[in-house]
């Protein structure tokens, strides 16, 4: 893995593909009509995305857009209803659970709340080394202590932390342990689901810097899922904006944040409070009406049309594909992507 040194100068298109999801559908099941059978509710409803080696794909969206379901489907915590998840030459979505375990070490996950995702009564060393019990052969037994110490140093903890229990640590320190635990299996991809959202500003910056350092040292790829647009803009090379189970806009961080073309992306960006805002100039923001519809009964046509300030008749019938459109440099799923960039203010 160390051979694939991360070269920051390489353009996005050149890096090796680590993970590619095509037409991915996943969600939950509920009782069918009149209580017979089961009905699938796709929370992720046909989604394509690509993560490249040593790079970060940021996924942004609001609650209910399916970003956590996406994370869970990719690491195999829930089954996919349809579509493929290509990883290391195999399709994770159709792979039987038993085989999946072998691949699992290459895809690790860091959750939002380390206090609930890790056992607070275990020692730091036991948490970090736990993966080696499940996947033997990565580190010889007699080298484990040294390896734990090395991992702790890597994430900015001291060797003496190894003997501590998690409940003795602060939230930021716990999140460092969660990252060390993920790194212990030498994964090619780490899925970070709101990994810094529970942290205070000053500590959050420490963890974001740590993730960036680890990426340039180890060449690990991140699928970085967050509701926080500033954080994603900061850490991601590429960004996918999700709304109600689909990607509505995708591109480099520069394209999506600098030249947003989907009306939802524009509304989202204008809604994010910035330290440069002032109480009197709130008028320029686009305030969306209403809230996200239920994934069990999505609107016909464009899924965003019920809240869209640009919606026309056509949007109720035609589903806009996520493609590069006339006048845009990156894929946008909107019939009016061209107008969206220039219209409004």
């Amino acid at each position, binding site marked *: 893995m160390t051979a694939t040194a991360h070269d920051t100068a390489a353009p996005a298109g050149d890096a090796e593909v680590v993970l590619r999801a095509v037409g991915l559908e996943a969600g939950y099941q509920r009782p069918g009509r009149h209580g017979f059978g089961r009905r699938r509710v796709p929370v992720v409803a046909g989604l394509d995305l690509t993560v490249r080696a040593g790079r970060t794909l940021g996924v942004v969206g*609001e*609650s209910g857009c399916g970003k956590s379901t996406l994370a869970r489907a990719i690491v195999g915590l829930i089954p996919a209803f349809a579509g493929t998840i290509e990883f290391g030459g195999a399709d994770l979505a159709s792979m039987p659970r038993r085989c999946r375990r072998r691949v699992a070490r290459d895809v690790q996950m860091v959750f939002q709340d380390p206090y609930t995702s890790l056992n607070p009564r275990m020692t730091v060393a036991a948490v970090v080394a736990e993966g080696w019990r499940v996947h033997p052969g990565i580190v010889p037994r007699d080298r484990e202590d040294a390896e734990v110490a090395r991992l702790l140093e890597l994430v900015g903890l001291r060797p003496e932390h190894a003997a501590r229990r998690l409940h003795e640590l*602060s939230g*930021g320190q716990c999140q460092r342990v969660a990252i060390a635990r993920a790194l212990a299996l030498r994964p090619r991809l780490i899925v970070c689901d709101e990994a810094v959202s529970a942290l*205070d*500003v*000053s*500590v*959050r*910056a*420490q963890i*974001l*810097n740590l993730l*960036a350092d680890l990426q340039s040292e180890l060449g690990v790829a991140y699928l970085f899922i967050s*509701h926080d*647009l*500033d*954080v994603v*803009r*900061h*850490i991601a090379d590429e960004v996918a904006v999700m709304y109600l189970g689909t990607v509505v806009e995708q591109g480099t*961080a*520069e394209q999506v*944040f600098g030249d947003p073309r989907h009306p939802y992306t524009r*509304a*989202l960006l*204008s*809604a*994010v*409070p*910035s*330290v*440069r*805002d*002032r*109480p009197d100039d*709130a008028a320029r*923001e686009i*305030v*969306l009406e209403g*809230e*996200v519809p239920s994934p069990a009964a999505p609107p016909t046509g464009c899924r965003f049309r019920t809240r869209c300030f640009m919606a026309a008749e056509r949007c109720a019938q035609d589903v806009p594909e996520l493609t590069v459109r006339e006048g845009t440099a990156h894929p946008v799923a909107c019939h009016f992507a061209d107008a969206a960039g220039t219209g409004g203010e």
Partner: protein
Amino acid sequence: MTMSAVHPAPAPPAGDAAAELRDVHIGFRSGRHVTPVVRGVTLRLRPGRVLALVGESGSGKSLTSLALIGLLPPGAEITAGTVALGGDDTAGFTARQWREARGSRVAMVFQDPMAALNPGFAVGAQIAEPFRRRLGLSRREARERAVALMREVGIADAAARYGDHPHEFSGGMRQRAVIAMALALGPSVLLADEPTTALDVTVQAQILRLLARRQQEAGLATLLVSHDLGVVARMAHDVAVMYAGRIVEQGPLDAVYTRPAHPYTLGLLRAMPDGREGARLIPVPGLPPDPRRPPGGCAFHPRCPFATDVCRTDDPPLTETGGRSVACHHADEVGAASSVEEDR
């Protein structure tokens, strides 16, 4: 509690403060020992103005706001200082006086609307309750007032939704209902503790807009407690930054945000991703102090790049400088450093 004995007689209240904290100390008692969590906070809330109280977890900002509505959690107590509402010292308030003050003089919007609403009762009935119990209106009148209020806070189809229970409301709608309840009796002081932290950004934008509009229309004196510097920038006229139980910098939003004079304020602003892709963040090193083992001198000195010997021994008082108050021995240097940054 012997609060009034500890503190000298309160000075006559200033005419324009709707609520005021004067040198308030709050601590958690365990046996004979008191752990100080809020250490001498002075704040004044003025009609029509929004004051934001900013700080990280454990800084004491929530306790400070709870003291203003007499809702400190069990174990926490005011050990010194004065909490005044509209000129009345609340030290002698009985439980009954507090109940009367809540809602009609001071109201609060909490972070989690699901916890603030009773899941077993219809939302409309909960909004109507103060009209019935406090104003003695008839069932019908109370219902009419509640529906009108629900409409005012942007709950669509208010009459039809009157009988819905909290679980049938979305997060944003629940927070609107909570705001309606807070405003029902026309309080002069509104406390909003992380009012949008549990909400999505597009819904947050709606709620912030609603709060700002109601605040202006009713001329509410508002205390906004938040860890989100962006939300504060959008809402507040004045900012007070709290660290380890003390206010370290306080002043008009623009002055504090564009030229911070306390190293902690500067650190917080620098640690925010500001939209430059790839630029490296500058975190505040280390962790906030444990309130049971506070460092000597200035509480921030172990994390402070400007710290010198005097910081390890003397806790700096809050003093006026450059249009705001700062508690730092090196405020001038910090101010200079932050203005250099601004020029870049």
